[in-house]
């Protein structure tokens, strides 16, 4: 199989109920992350870098920021004669209440696309992944379905997680749906899978006709019926499934090995371009162990922070362990510790805000403190 025979299909709203603050006015996929990115940049760049030409993004609500960010897809090289990015939103009064119905409601789009395979991906995953290895694995094993899985502790936020019993060859013997997430080591499936389009639509149709709306059950029932395989994602992967995992991922970017892997120059991560000037450090700036995007003016002290594009940090301000999203204004002589500051927030001079390592506090978009 070739990558241009694969349709990328991304769910933009994955686990948005687990990050209610961040996703209050946007989809999970368009949550700002890592100083200049939105979550979806990673999966879209992976698809583009792997040679996938056609991508559909499913968004059930709150998709204004998503449409604004991905636009025509040109930033990801997905807007050409032979490449496409399509935003799939509810229409004609249909709802996207669960995966089975959603996929079925998109059958017109999916069946119209000329690709033979569908790669389903989730909008809450941060990784730099070459899908070509997955495609080779799928072909070599003559698989009907291949899941991507991760070995390790299941991240908090995944309720009723799916775990796999995989043998040495990668064949899946059994699929478990855990009644609760006990955060144990396992081979954990996070909603990424590769399947032939025809098989997917047949299974969805049959599930609907039997009124089986639980996608996890549909997945479980593939065992014994099809050649089901699983491919391990061995690279650095962050699952944004809680405000804590969001915070932890941003802080992981201070580690060189994480940056080197995620921002591999051979497989760049693309994002919508904004013409910001380089960031300016003032005479009294003091920055330690931080990630700083362009267009910032830093006159204060910044330590262990991720500062997004266009942020202003005033004189005498002390920021530690903070994530500051774009165009926020942090006034002079402020003192902030463990705070997530959303877009366009203004912190007035002299204010103090403290969160805690395990409980970062959050300031909503456009607030004035």
């Amino acid at each position, binding site marked *: 199989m070739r990558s241009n025979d694969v349709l990328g299909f991304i769910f933009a709203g994955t686990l948005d109920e687990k990050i209610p603050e961040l996703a209050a006015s946007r989809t999970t996929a368009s949550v700002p992350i890592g100083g200049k990115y939105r979550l979806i940049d990673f999966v879209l760049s992976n698809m583009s870098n792997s040679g996938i030409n056609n991508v559909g993004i499913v968004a059930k609500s709150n998709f204004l920021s998503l449409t604004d960010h991905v636009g025509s897809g040109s930033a990801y090289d997905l807007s050409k004669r032979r490449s496409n990015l399509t935003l799939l939103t509810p229409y004609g009064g249909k709802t996207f209440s669960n995966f089975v119905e959603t996929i079925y409601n998109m059958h017109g789009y999916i069946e119209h696309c000329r690709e033979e395979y569908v790669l389903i991906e989730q909008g809450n995953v941060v990784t730099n992944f070459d899908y070509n290895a997955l495609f080779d694995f799928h072909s070599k094993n003559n698989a009907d379905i291949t899941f991507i899985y991760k070995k390790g502790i299941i991240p908090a936020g995944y309720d009723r997680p799916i775990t796999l019993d995989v043998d040495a060859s990668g064949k899946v013997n059994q699929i478990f749906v855990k009644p609760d997430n006990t955060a144990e080591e396992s081979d954990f499936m996070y909603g990424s899978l590769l399947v032939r389009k025809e098989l997917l639509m047949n299974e969805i149709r049959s599930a609907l006709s039997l009124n089986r709306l639980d996608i996890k059950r549909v997945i479980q029932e593939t065992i014994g019926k099809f050649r089901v395989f699983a491919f391990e994602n061995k690279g650095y992967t962050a699952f944004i499934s809680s405000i804590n995992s969001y915070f932890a991922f941003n802080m992981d970017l201070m580690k060189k090995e994480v940056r080197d892997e*995620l921002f591999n120059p051979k497989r760049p991560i693309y994002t919508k371009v904004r*013409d910001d000037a*380089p960031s300016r450090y003032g*005479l009294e*700036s003091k920055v330690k162990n931080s990630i700083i995007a*362009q267009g910032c003016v830093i006159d204060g002290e910044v330590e262990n922070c991720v*500062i997004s594009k266009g942020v202003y940090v005033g004189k005498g301000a002390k920021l530690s362990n903070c994530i500051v999203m774009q165009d926020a204004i942090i006034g002079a002589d402020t003192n902030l510790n463990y705070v997530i500051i959303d877009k366009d927030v203004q912190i007035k001079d002299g204010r103090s805000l403290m969160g805690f390592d395990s409980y970062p506090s959050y300031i909503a978009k456009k607030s004035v403190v």
Partner: protein
Amino acid sequence: MQMFPKQEVVAMLLAGGQGSRLGVLTKKLAKPAVPFGGKYRIIDFPLSNCVNSGIEAVGILTQYQPLILNEYIGNGQPWDLDGMHSGVNCLSPYQAIKGADWYSGTANAIYQNINYIERYDPDYVVILSGDHIYKMDYNKMLEYHKEKNAACTIAVIDVPLEEASRFGILNTHEDGEIYEFDEKPEHPKSTNASMGIYIFSWKELRKYLTEDEAKEGSSHDFGKDVLPTMLAAGERMFAYPFEGYWKDVGTIDSLWEANMDLLDPNVTLDLKDIYSRNPMMPPHYVSPDANIQNSLIADGCNVEGDLEFSILFSGVTVGKGATINSSIIMPGAVIEEGANVQFAIVAENTVIGKNATVGQRPEAVENRDEWGIAVIGENTVIADGAFIPAKQMIDTDTEVAAE
């Protein structure tokens, strides 16, 4: 010929000169493509000015080392110059039935591209050069040109009297009408220096370009030939006074100064609305060991050393204990641990080895005349511990061993 929608104004940007005074920095690229200000190239300034002034058709005249420039301009998308019927085009010398000629002068370059200009049936043509850093609304100048019913309008900037003899000075009547050109005068009569920005009414320019082309002995240059001829013929020529930041970056010193001006809070040049191609790199990282004051840093840098009064372009690495002062480090350069770079320009992808020293402070040099900015060409490796004194210029693609 295909008909294009009419454009009132077409801009022609002269980008073919070598810029030999920039030495190794223009060995492999044309002067307008020289990196500037942490993420730009010089040409971003006139190009952004064009789009911000509503000029949608821009011809770039290229001749010397055009590869990097052509690649950078591409389809013009970063500047919104990728319209269906207009946009940016790189115009290089070409072969035709009657033969082939290099561009022999600035006026000849425009003359050879009369067909490009005429496609748009313009009323006015703006002539720009690719070696100045400034922000200007060409529209205001055009309004002035129309108001004065001029054949030619030249933008001028007020320079200090003691510096006026370095410039082309325009002497004008009170209403701004030019009566005399004074090229680098010993005893300047005024302080109106030409900025190298001309607006012509196209019909007049076309006439004078054609006449000049036929003239024996002409060097086909705007400043030397076309403008004096127009003045002698009694055409209405006006000086348009510009106020704001403007700097010629044709020499190492002025290029360095213009970069340093970006760090000066008293300088009025604001980089907002200057567009450029953006490399796809993550935000920069500053380590716990770094100390950064009064500097500009672009995406993709990794800073573990000390920075003061310096500019880092995208993807620069600064090792632990390295110190950089009053310097410009271009994309992809690596300053290794303990290296010391001061009063220097380090070009793209160059490596400064561990504990090497590049450049010196003015006070470290006994004879001030021997002091100057040190320049290291692109893709060069300066070995660990090597010393490059002030004012030295190191070639591109070389290796410099330690003594």
